[in-house]
């Protein structure tokens, strides 16, 4: 099998605060293959975004720091690269799209300026060629009248349009990996669907690997080949879309799925919710981090931290009781 495009090993990113060290990402390992679309889901503060920021090395010391770990991208360890080479990687080989398109573009430069700037930075082309590429990508993200809109400023675009511009900016240099950090959270639902369809088409066309970070399970369902669920700074379950949605092995995944509204649900039942609140990342609970909120916790869960292992069902899961529990059979939550 070929080398994976991205290989993250035991990544730990800590933030020092006055209350103590926040272990935002605490031992995360995963691989993303070329062209693969990977979803990263979890609730707010579980370390999804910090993982992405760590890959891009956008964590600013002294506030946050990547303590240990290895991020291999295309055969190079990004954490060992000098800053100048890392700048080549950012935007050129790994592009990133952010959550709020309303504020992600510089208000005092035109869309064209900001697109051309990226292209000139990473590709060896003339200014007019860069302009042509920029117009092309704008057209690719379905901005009507692309050439004329190049001269417009961000405030002349709607939220959805701005996110398209961000996608165009991300894809303009043909990156091998696109990290999308909650790209649709700030948009209304119909626009969300358009943006996701657009990203799917473009990623397939260009064979770009995508790391999609979201708390919205509905968004990953149609988009991702594989999904990893994060909880309190660690991955608790990883598998294909089918595995995760139809046969969750971890009680947290199962709880998350149960808290989704479903259009085909006929009975008027209360939505399931995962009880309690996420644990402190400064002093995480002993044993399984999900233990205090888990309906199935036993003594071993309170003692030992479960590690991610291959379950009998196929996916990888970090739960002591994964094999003995039959979550699928329990009615609440889990999909059909």
């Amino acid at each position, binding site marked *: 099998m070929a080398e994976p495009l991205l290989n993250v090993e035991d990544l730990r990113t800590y933030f020092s605060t006055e209350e103590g060290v926040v272990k935002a990402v605490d031992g995360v390992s995963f691989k993303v293959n070329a062209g693969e679309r990977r979803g990263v889901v979890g609730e707010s503060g579980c370390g999804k975004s910090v993982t992405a920021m760590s890959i891009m090395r956008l964590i600013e010391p002294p506030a946050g720091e990547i303590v240990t770990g290895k991020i291999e991208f295309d055969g190079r360890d990004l954490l060992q690269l000098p800053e100048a080479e890392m*700048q080549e990687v*950012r935007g050129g080989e790994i*592009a990133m799209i*952010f959550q709020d398109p309303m504020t992600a573009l*510089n208000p*005092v430069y035109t869309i064209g300026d900001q697109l051309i700037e990226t292209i000139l930075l990473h590709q060896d082309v003339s200014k007019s060629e860069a302009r042509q590429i920029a117009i092309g990508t704008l057209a690719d993200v379905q901005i009507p009248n692309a050439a004329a809109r190049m001269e417009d*400023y961000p405030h002349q675009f709607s939220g959805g349009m701005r996110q398209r511009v961000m996608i165009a900016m991300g894809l303009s240099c043909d990156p091998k990996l696109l990290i999308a950090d909650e790209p649709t959270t700030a948009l209304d639902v119909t626009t969300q669907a358009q943006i996701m369809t657009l990203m799917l088409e473009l990623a397939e066309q260009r064979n770009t690997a995508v790391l999609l970070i979201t708390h919205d399970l509905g968004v990953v369902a149609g988009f991702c080949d594989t999904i990893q669920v994060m909880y309190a700074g660690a991955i608790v379950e990883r598998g294909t879309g089918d595995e995760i949605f139809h046969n969750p092995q971890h009680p947290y995944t199962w709880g998350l799925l149960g808290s989704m509204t479903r259009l085909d649900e006929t009975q008027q039942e209360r939505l399931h919710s995962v009880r309690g609140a996420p644990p402190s990342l400064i002093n995480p609970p002993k044993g399984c981090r999900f233990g205090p909120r888990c309906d199935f916790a036993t003594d071993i869960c309170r003692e030992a931290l479960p590690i991610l292992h291959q379950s009998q069902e196929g996916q990888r899961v970090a739960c002591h009781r994964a094999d003995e529990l039959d979550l699928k059979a329990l009615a609440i939550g889990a999909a059909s």
Partner: protein
Amino acid sequence: MFAYIIRRLVYGIVTLFALSLVVFVLIQFSGGTPLDRLKLNPRMQPVIAQLTEQWGLDKPWYEQYFIWLKNFVTPIDVPSEPGLTVVLFGKLGIRSWVAVAAGVVAIGYSVATFFIRVKANWWRTFRAFSIIGVWVAAFWIAKSRVVFALNWGESFRGDGAVWDNVFGAAGNTFRLGLTALAIALILGIPLGIYQAIKQYSFFDQMGTMLSFITFSTPIFIIGVMLQLILAYQLERWTGVKVFYVAGMTSSGYAELERGLFGLPSLAQWGDVIQHLTLPALSIAAISMAGYSRFQRASMLEVMHSDYLRTAKAKGLPRRTIIVKHALRNALIPIVTLVSLDIAFIIGGAIITESIFGWPGVGRLYIGAINAIDYPTIMAVVMAIGAGVVVMNIVADILYGVLDPRVRYD
């Protein structure tokens, strides 16, 4: 845009009109008359009667106001003055002022266009020529020998025409105020930017501390300390007179050799700088502290913005991120601040001018108030008012140039 400026100017004239009325009434009803001091001497009685008649002080206040207003906007003939030297030193006629204004426009224009995208070479060429053109025009106007004046009346203190006094003092005040502003901007803005880039570093903490100390020290302390240390003690230690504590030039200034084309010579420039440095530094110290704080705050806000994170994620080098993406956004709020500060330069620095014996508008103004010298008080108030109105408009225009989200129609 043009319609907007015209509208703002019309509002401005209305504002100035209201200002003149309010101030005139306030002076009239604040008690005392300009001739009170003469009453102590019984033999002055006929003089008082004559001056009361001559200045119209026996008329009702509204009649006095309309006489003042009519005269205030009426031009009078005055003997001509030499041009360029007048711009740089001493008394100024309105032509010379136009020249100075044109120069300011040219500088402002070149600064503003520096930030505007240049699309074609012809635009660049045009821009360069237009700046040169404005400067040539300014020189030509300055060299021309015609001088213009309005009938602002005679000072009640018996020291000549108000027009001459105000513009003479305004030239001195501008020399001091603009130098101080330049020092404050050149040092304060980069200081604030650097502090923001190196937030919480030793340099940042020191800068913050010094800014607060300077900002909270009264100017009469700063001024006197500078006189004591940089003038008096420095001369004692080195035996060389480096800075002067008072005045604009030495008494022997006129005898110093003159430069080419009637311009001041190097020796004369040196003399001017020796006098100018200390008062300018006193004013600049406080403004600089203020500017650096504002600039630091505004820069920090931009540094933490989402679009800067985008710029970083694009792979831009740090220098480009700061110079191109952060700086332009961070300078926008400072424009308003500086524009209004320029307006208040016209009013002069009353305390600093007193400490350093600087014959500027501030000293003229405080003297006029003490003597209840209506014509001078009114002239200075109107000059400050006009400055505020004009600089407000300038600030709004610059805002529109710097920030594409701002449009006037």
